């Protein structure tokens, strides 16, 4: 267990049924995924399926807790899916060559609103190694309140899978928290980035320096004047980040983190997060507080730090500026479209499925331009009508 195999494992496919906005979706996932869609189309809900798997296997977590945290089965269930009320999450996991794992979980709630498992399945290299409900479950229905994933004595045959779920990391950095470290005292692995500077400070110096160097090289795509980045502790021991810029002064100019813009600070946090860890990373709206000119460089910056790590990163974004990059694969862009009619739920398509996309790109349009009409909120036109 914990051998190198888990290092390069990633999600290659996810199928969701009756999960929040999604009545039924089936999506292939690349190393890098951009989730694009209007507000409330379900970008965060899509990412939440991966967080749910993580919550099942995390310490102090488990299936019951993961459902409870989300307000119960009736909150999770897709309103559009009246006939198929069972919730299904089914993921495929590969190391890039052979199909390594599949995990499928189907659940609902009983009359006392207690979540229970209808089906749990683990497939290893094409063979079923777990298929529930099994004979023991049939003798003791109570067993169906827990998954086999969450217990060390039932998951020993698929620890790599458990390790992958455990390594899923979610991040939605709030720059104000980085500026005011007092607000996050005592927190560790804060998904909102409160302990970001402290995390850097705790990293051994050699690793810290090499990561900061990679971050500089990535940031230079958008900020060519940036020469150096370093972490210093003040008299009270609080860590501060400062950056050195090429400047008219011969020594250059140092800038403390208070002088960095919210967006820059947040960007540094996100780049650090990519370098820190190996499991799939879920990043919400990396474009927040950034100038559109910087946003269009995000894919290049992230790809530069991500280089060689093989780490899977799933971004959710509102910004089509992000899609000007010519190097973004059409199969890396997932477009979320809320259902036209009641009862249809959100659908997901890759950009390569857009009709005429080849012709439009060939004719000189950028992927951003092609995708805009696909992601525009339907209400946007109605808003102008109301104004009249």
């Amino acid at each position, binding site marked *: 267990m914990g051998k190198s195999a888990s290092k390069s494992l990633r999600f290659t496919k996810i199928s969701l049924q009756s999960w929040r906005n999604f009545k039924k979706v089936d999506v292939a996932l690349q190393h*890098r995924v951009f989730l694009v869609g209007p507000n409330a189309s379900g970008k965060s809900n899509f990412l939440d399926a991966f967080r749910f798997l993580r919550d099942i296997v995390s310490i102090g977590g488990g299936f019951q807790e993961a459902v409870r945290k989300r307000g119960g089965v009736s909150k999770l269930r897709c309103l559009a899916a009246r006939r198929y009320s069972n919730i299904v999450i089914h993921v495929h996991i590969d190391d890039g060559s052979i199909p390594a794992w599949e995990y499928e979980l189907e659940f609902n709630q009983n009359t006392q609103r207690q979540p229970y498992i209808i089906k749990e399945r683990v497939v290893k290299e094409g063979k079923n190694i777990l298929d529930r409900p099994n004979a023991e479950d049939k003798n003791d229905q109570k067993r169906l309140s827990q998954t086999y994933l969450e217990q060390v004595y039932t998951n020993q045959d698929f620890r790599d899978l458990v390790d992958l779920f455990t390594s899923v990391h979610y991040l939605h950095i709030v720059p104000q928290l980085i500026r005011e470290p007092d607000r996050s005292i005592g927190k560790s692995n804060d998904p909102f980035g409160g302990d970001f500077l402290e995390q850097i400070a705790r990293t051994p110096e050699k690793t810290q320096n090499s990561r900061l160097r990679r971050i500089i090289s990535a940031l230079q*795509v958008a900020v*060519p004047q940036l020469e150096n980045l370093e972490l210093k502790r003040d008299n009270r021991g609080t860590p501060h980040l400062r950056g050195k810029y090429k400047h008219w002064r011969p020594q250059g100019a140092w800038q403390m983190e208070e002088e960095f813009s919210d967006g820059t600070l947040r960007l540094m946090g996100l780049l650090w997060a990519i370098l820190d860890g190996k499991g799939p990373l879920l990043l919400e709206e990396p474009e927040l507080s950034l100038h559109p000119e910087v946003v*269009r*460089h995000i*894919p*290049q*910056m992230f*790809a*530069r730090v991500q*280089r*060689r790590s093989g780490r899977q990163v799933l971004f959710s974004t509102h910004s089509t500026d992000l899609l*000007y*990059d*010519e*190097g*973004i*694969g*059409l*199969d*890396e862009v997932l477009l979320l479209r809320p259902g036209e009619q009641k009862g249809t739920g959100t659908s997901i398509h890759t*950009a*390569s499925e857009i009709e005429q*996309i*080849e012709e439009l790109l060939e004719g*000189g*349009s*950028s992927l951003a*331009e092609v995708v805009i009409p696909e992601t525009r909120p339907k209400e946007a036109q109605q808003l102008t009508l109301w104004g009249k």
Partner: protein
Amino acid sequence: MKDGYTVSVSGAVEGDLDEAVLRRLVEEKGAILDRLYGKQGKQHIEKRLGGYNQAAHRFPWVVFRDLDHDADCAPSLKARCLPNPARYMCFRIAVRTIESWLLADRESIAGFLRVAVSRVPSFPETLDDPKYAMVELARHSRLRDIREGVVPRPGSGRKVGTLYTSQLIEFAQTKWEPETAAQRSDSLRRCRERIHEPVKSQIDKSSS
């Protein structure tokens, strides 16, 4: 140039790589690129060219556009897009895309992509698709980072790889020598000569 006086130039380009090249060429003349417009493809520039030209009656402007396959030669495209360029307008066309200017510095690009110089095309302006030529060159790189970053992944549906733009921006910023490249690219040679004109006239204006 007068002491302490730097000429500011406005510019418009099709994309990020063009920006890096424009910056090098403007800075080479001792000027700075003060304002940059466009970066949303050629149609975007074409629509706004009238306005840029209007502004170039008073201020120096440099606008780049790729010839692609939109005309047989640069002069005919220029005549069509901008028949009456303003006094300080420098409208330059790269034959056929900006990549040919980068390929024209054979030694440097071979060194950067880690390929044999003999693989780099000798006459970049005769290439049908210089961007494709650049990607093909990178396919032979001895460095894994270059091969995996510059060449598109099968199934991606794109012509370039994930790191194509930033790798070539880095090349344009740090290794590319415009003077050497101009010897193999006529459109670049003319561009370097003409960029000088609005800059020079602006200096003359300030010292008169």
